[in-house]
């Protein structure tokens, strides 16, 4: 059997989502550029069926308004899903340089309505319409993407109850679980239109869970300000709270705002703007190339195998089919054991017969298919879509609570990004659980963090001969990295309890710094070395440094192919629990921190800088004093990049948040329990 995967020439990484990595690739038989999503099935407990569901929905779509599904196949424990490549990026990416004009919004909305008209006629509900899930082709065609939570109805008149979507964009009837249909998508479209106009959906500053309370209770959002009457009316029509009075996609296509919309080609302006914007902000990034990782899971340790030999001749089954007189206690213990055992793995067990209709969808609302903004410039570089995926993360709550309380599974653990790239998922899970706080921050390996980590390693390397400097380094570590990062994070955090928790952590570090700066130094060093010692951890967190050691530290940028896995990955999955108060847009901003970008540019231009950036932890490359000093300064700046060291402070936020969410969810059930069960 030939390997289907060989039909594709894998190119650079386009982006990452909670469900895997998306690569650009070329179909060798046709020369066509495609996007291929790699989903590591080992990293998830029970998602195979949902992925199948997504594929089933996508593969039955035949519309120019929907990202085209091509094929999917298995490669070992990875599922490859081949999709149409869309070079324009998502609307969320395109929003980064600035909000859309009304003219552009009208075009996007018209195309979306056409897409929805198609889907709805097919008996499909998208259920997660938002800017991040709207992709543009290079010539401006608008396509719906990410059918991760889409529903296929067998009867076009039937209704759905599943609670699914992304809170800010969710229609009131979806939140209330009172039964909803296609009209839910129209509401989300209205919110999306506002998002395109304002840069974020209404209530973006609110906690996503609070928004769920807010939407049904309050009058629908309205577009205020300097917009045309038609646009405002369009939004008002979409955002009618009673779905019966909300127009269908077909009706909305007749709206004046839509009828006056221009040609899709006009959307190329947005793409061009984004390219300009990127060109001004960043130097070309290092593409991350696809690397085969399948072999990494082979287990080589020779364990002594089970011994079966002497039982070759299967003994006659004793007494089977004869008397079957069991002692009562025997019966009891069988039953008891079975009861113990059957809860988890038998969804169809009689223990819960017919009561619980398992809430159908609970996949995290989105990401991943995002073919992301690789409007690659001539250099063939890739822009990471980190910023486009990251904002979705805060909404990663597992909203599996459907109609019944008993199916609640509120937060699912999301493997860290680095783990999805071929590590065993379970390892990553364990890492999450068992690692001390500090290394937790390193699990959230954003490129910058990693860079910093490498620098620190490097630094240690240099300094190790001069013993006695640990204290100085420890102080420096605190002053340059930990303290600013904590301060930054603190500034970004809204919840008072979370702020307090962060403040506590900050105090604790300050105390450590005052009392024992060496301790701080050793803490980080031992963390790094223990990470490095563990094969799996190090490949997860330090892999880029090891690969880069191999690849020569070439000072020219971006274009160097293969092996330069440098800018490792987008920011960490920040599950809701960890960063509950950041609205997507905030994350976007922070990632585009101008200091950071300009700094990176500088770094790239000096040979020293690039050696440093690539060869961190290598130590073999000679460096001048000046370079080192400059590095320190750079690190100071870098350390201000939010979301790095600060993460250790967030663990308790997670617990707190879980408690809060639980409480909130219970409240919701009490409140609407009658409706939900009725």
């Amino acid at each position: 059997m030939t390997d289907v995967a060989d039909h594709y020439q894998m190119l650079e990484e386009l982006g990452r989502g909670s469900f895997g990595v998306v690569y650009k690739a070329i179909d060798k038989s046709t020369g066509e550029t495609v996007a291929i999503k790699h989903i590591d099935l080992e990293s998830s407990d029970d998602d195979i069926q949902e992925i199948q569901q997504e594929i089933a929905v996508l593969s039955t779509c035949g519309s120019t308004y929907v990202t085209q599904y091509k094929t999917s196949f298995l490669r070992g424990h990875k599922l490859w899903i081949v999709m149409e490549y869309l070079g324009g990026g998502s609307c969320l990416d395109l929003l980064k340089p600035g909000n859309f004009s009304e003219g552009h919004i009208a075009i996007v909305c018209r195309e979306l309505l056409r897409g929805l008209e198609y889907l709805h006629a097919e008996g499909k509900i998208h259920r997660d319409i938002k800017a991040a899930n709207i992709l543009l082709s290079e010539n401006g065609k608008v396509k719906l993407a990410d059918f991760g939570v889409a529903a296929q109805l067998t009867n076009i008149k039937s209704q759905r109850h599943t609670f699914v979507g992304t809170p800010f964009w969710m229609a009131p009837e979806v939140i209330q679980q009172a039964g909803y249909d296609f009209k839910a998508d129209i509401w989300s479209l209205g919110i999306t239109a506002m998002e395109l106009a304002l840069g974020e959906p209404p209530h973006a500053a609110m906690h996503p869970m609070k928004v769920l309370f807010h939407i049904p209770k309050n009058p629908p959002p309205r577009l205020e300000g300097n917009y045309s009457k038609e646009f405002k009316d369009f939004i008002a029509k979409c955002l009618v709270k009673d779905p019966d009075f909300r127009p269908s996609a077909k009706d909305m296509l007749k709206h004046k705002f839509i009828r006056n919309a221009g040609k899709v080609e006009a959307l190329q302006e947005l793409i061009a703007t984004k390219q300009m914007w990127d060109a001004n902000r960043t130097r070309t990034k290092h593409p991350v190339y696809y690397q085969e990782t399948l072999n990494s899971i082979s287990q080589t340790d020779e364990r002594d195998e089970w011994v079966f030999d002497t039982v070759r001749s299967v003994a006659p089954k004793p007494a089977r089919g004869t008397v079957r007189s069991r002692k009562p206690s025997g019966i009891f213990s069988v039953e008891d054991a079975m009861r113990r055992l059957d809860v988890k793995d038998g969804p169809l067990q009689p223990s819960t017969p017919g009561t619980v209709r398992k809430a159908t969808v609970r996949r995290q609302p989105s990401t991943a298919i995002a073919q992301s903004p690789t409007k690659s410039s001539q250099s063939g570089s890739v822009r990471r879509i980190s910023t486009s995926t990251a904002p979705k993360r805060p909404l990663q709550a597992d909203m599996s609570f459907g109609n019944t309380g008993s199916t609640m599974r509120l937060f699912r653990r999301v493997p860290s990004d680095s783990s999805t790239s071929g590590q065993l998922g379970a390892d990553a899970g364990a890492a999450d659980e068992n690692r001390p706080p500090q290394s937790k921050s390193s699990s959230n390996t954003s490129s910058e963090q990693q860079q910093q980590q490498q620098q620190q390693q490097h630094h240690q390397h240099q300094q190790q001969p001069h013993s006695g400097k640990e204290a100085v380094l420890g102080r420096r570590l605190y002053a340059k990295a930990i303290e600013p990062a904590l301060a930054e994070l603190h500034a970004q955090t809204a919840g008072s309890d979370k702020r307090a928790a962060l403040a506590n952590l900050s105090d604790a570090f300050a105390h450590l710094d005052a009392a024992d700066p060496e301790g701080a130094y050793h803490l980080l060093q031992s963390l790094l070395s223990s990470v490095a010692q563990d094969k799996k951890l190090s490949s997860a967190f330090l892999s880029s440094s090891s690969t880069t050691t191999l690849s020569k530290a070439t000072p020219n940028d971006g274009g160097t192919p293969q092996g330069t896995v440098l800018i490792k990955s987008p920011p960490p999955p920040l599950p809701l629990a960890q960063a509950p108060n950041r609205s997507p847009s905030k994350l976007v901003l922070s990632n585009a921190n101008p200091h950071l970008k300009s700094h990176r540019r500088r770094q790239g231009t000096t040979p020293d800088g690039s050696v440093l950036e690539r060869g961190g932890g290598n130590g073999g490359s000679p460096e001048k004093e000046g370079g080192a000093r400059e590095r320190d300064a750079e690190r100071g700046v870098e350390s201000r990049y939010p979301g790095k060291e600060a993460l250790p402070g967030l663990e308790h936020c997670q617990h707190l948040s879980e408690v809060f969410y639980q409480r909130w969810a219970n409240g919701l059930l009490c409140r609407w329990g009658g409706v939900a069960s009725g």
Partner: protein
Amino acid sequence: MASFFFRGRTRTNASDLPRQAKEHVTKLEGPAGAAKAEELGKVLSQMKLILQGTHEAEVSPEQIVQLVQSVIEEDLLYLLAVNLHRLPFESRKDTQVIFSYIFRFRPPAASPKSEPAALKYIIEQRPQVLVELCKGYDHKESATPAGSVLREVIKSEAAAAIILYDDGDEPGSSAHGLMAIDRDRLQSGHGIFWRFFEWIDKGSFEVAADAFTTFRELLTKHKDLVPRFLHVNFELFFDKYNHILVQSNSYVTKRQSIKLLGEILLDRSNYNVMTEYVDRGEHLKICMNLLRDDRKMVQYEGFHVFKVFVANPNKSIPVQKILIMNRDKLLTFLSQFLEDRTDDEQFIDEREFLIKQIRSMPPQPVPSQR
């Protein structure tokens, strides 16, 4: 679209459409196949509109009655099932909708408990339609639409029985209708049900995944039908299951079938099947090897089958022998087994339970109490 719609309103049209469709569908293979496919597509989409209505317009039950009647008379369901993979993309979807609606349709006067008329007819007199729908898994094109229809249909126990007990021309096969089924007869293994193993193991991902979903539904939905089926056909079924599905080269097939095996065994209605299964030393060996697979999720699913062997208070002699012989290894192995599942309390409890059970086993096999 609108013109179809209005034509669809006229009475004669509804009963005429199936005849037209039949005419076209039989000529799909011919020289004018492409043109016929297009015409057929139009007819099918009209039929769909009549059955489904639109968001704006309600359906007319009288028209549907006529249509269903005529579909049965023309034997159109069979023809469509056979030719599903030859139809164009949109027509395949329309066909899926048509099947679903027809199999669901009850005249307004009929009791909501009664079997829908068309389904009843198929089950009693034309079971080949269901068999042909299963054969939809022979082609990538027809797998998804056929699978969706099948999964809806087999919610009916009778329909599921048709598929489980199809055995060609053998006596007692469902090929002669529901009433002819002999549930106590050993099957030859050539019936349509047994082809699922092949589709699941060998099919492309989309086909295999869809076929497996249907297979799972077939084996888990009906708590009277399936245990009896499994009991009678125990050897054939588990031989195929263990050697084709559990040992499949496809990661998804392997993992999902181990999981399903655990579900089947732990289903109370399958108690007898379970006891029979866990008596076999051969089965335990397969299972213990799964624990040593190099993929964690395979190990994990394997564990949920393994636990059934160990938790069984009446272990057979061969099972006891294997466990006792490997006692020390198992204890060491289990103590470190999937250690990183620290947040899975149930798993941790069960693992502890198994360790205790194995530790407390007697040094020599003891004949079972039963």
